[in-house]
């Protein structure tokens, strides 16, 4: 594997910061070497320096987009952490069903959905545990900046490694069908989620509704304080006053964030607009 020249690493860091507000530390060049390996094989015979140079000098934007997508962290799996049981089943959904009993509407946003396991987990959970929501207008919107991740998410098709991580066998049997070596999510779940390309640090779509629940798990920790505050301030406007914001286990918010903590567990924290 080729070693990244310092000036190319610097170009890459600037690109990531500019496009997705991710600040790659000085000493993580080895991460870039590992993550760009396949893309370099595809475009520049495995030469990572040539790949970065080509992307920087490209008149179009396509290769730069691919570079950013290849560098992004796509770690996700079905029912990531038992926070789903703790927060959704026991607290949020029952509470919101009481609060919204007149309008009978629920809007949920998985704001950095990667390859789709998070929003589909919510869809399966609602279908399985809250059949009374059948007559409600339930919208699950899932977004990510990466077109590649979204294409996979939209397909609803997963391989063995993904199916083995976090997905209860009962849900696998109920909601998936096997196609060759992969598993396809059935339309009854897949159709409940709509996907959109949204880059959290760029302009959000004007027609984005206000949400009852926003999942922003393990995202903010990669941002600078300024970007984090910007996203939170926009998120505050995008949330219903009695809605919820869910963060990952390693994340917490200051009082000045515009959100107050409702509950915390070892799996994550949830907040409401203050």
């Amino acid at each position, binding site marked *: 594997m080729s070693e990244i020249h310092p000036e190319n690493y610097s170009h890459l860091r600037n690109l990531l910061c500019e496009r997705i507000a991710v600040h790659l530390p000085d000493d993580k060049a080895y991460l870039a070497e590992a993550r760009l390996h396949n893309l370099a094989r595809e475009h520049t015979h495995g030469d990572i320096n040539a790949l970065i140079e080509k992307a920087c000098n490209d008149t179009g934007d396509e290769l730069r987009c691919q570079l950013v997508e290849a560098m992004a962290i796509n770690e996700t799996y079905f029912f990531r952490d038992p926070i789903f049981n703790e927060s959704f089943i026991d607290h949020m959904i029952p509470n919101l069903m009481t609060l919204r009993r007149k309008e009978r509407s629920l809007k949920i946003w998985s704001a950095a959905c990667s390859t789709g396991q998070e929003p589909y987990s919510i869809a399966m959970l609602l279908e399985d545990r809250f059949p009374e929501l059948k007559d409600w207008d339930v919208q699950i919107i899932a977004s990510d900046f990466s077109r590649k991740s979204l294409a996979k998410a939209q397909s609803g098709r997963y391989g063995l*490694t993904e199916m083995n*991580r976090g997905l*209860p*066998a009962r849900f696998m*049997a109920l909601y*998936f*069908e096997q196609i060759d070596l992969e598993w396809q999510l059935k339309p009854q779940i897949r159709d409940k989620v709509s996907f959109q390309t949204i880059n959290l640090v760029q302009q959000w779509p004007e027609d984005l509704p206000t949400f009852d629940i926003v999942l922003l798990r393990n995202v903010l920790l990669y941002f600078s304080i300024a970007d984090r505050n910007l996203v939170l301030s926009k998120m505050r406007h995008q949330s219903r006053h009695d809605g919820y914001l869910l963060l990952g286990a390693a994340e917490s918010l200051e009082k000045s964030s515009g959100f107050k903590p409702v509950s915390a567990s070892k799996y994550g924290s949830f907040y409401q607009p203050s």
Partner: protein
Amino acid sequence: MATPQALVIDDSRAMRLILGDLLNQLGYETHEAGDGQQAISLLEEDQTIPTLALVDWNMPVMNGLDFIKAVREKTCYTDMKLLVVTSEAEVGHMVEALTAGADEYLMKPFSSEALASKLEMLGLRHA
């Protein structure tokens, strides 16, 4: 706290070794059986009921499904979690196993992470 016990039932010695190793790393003491019948004999001989049994599907003498059915008929094993670990990936097999009383299903090949995730799903402690 006593070390949790796990019974690994698989006709492949290599698979028993791999699973045993992974479970040891997760804090389990493991016992092995090469088929369902041998596993039942082990359970009957032993005073301690394992917290968990990992059950292969295709085995000689008594297969995994018959083992699950036999174990679930006896009330003394109600608390023992049964995790099917198999290369049989069809949904039909999954449904059969769950209906017979298996608690979870892990498809081969799997990663140590996937095994740990299944144990967590079963509410089992691991290191």
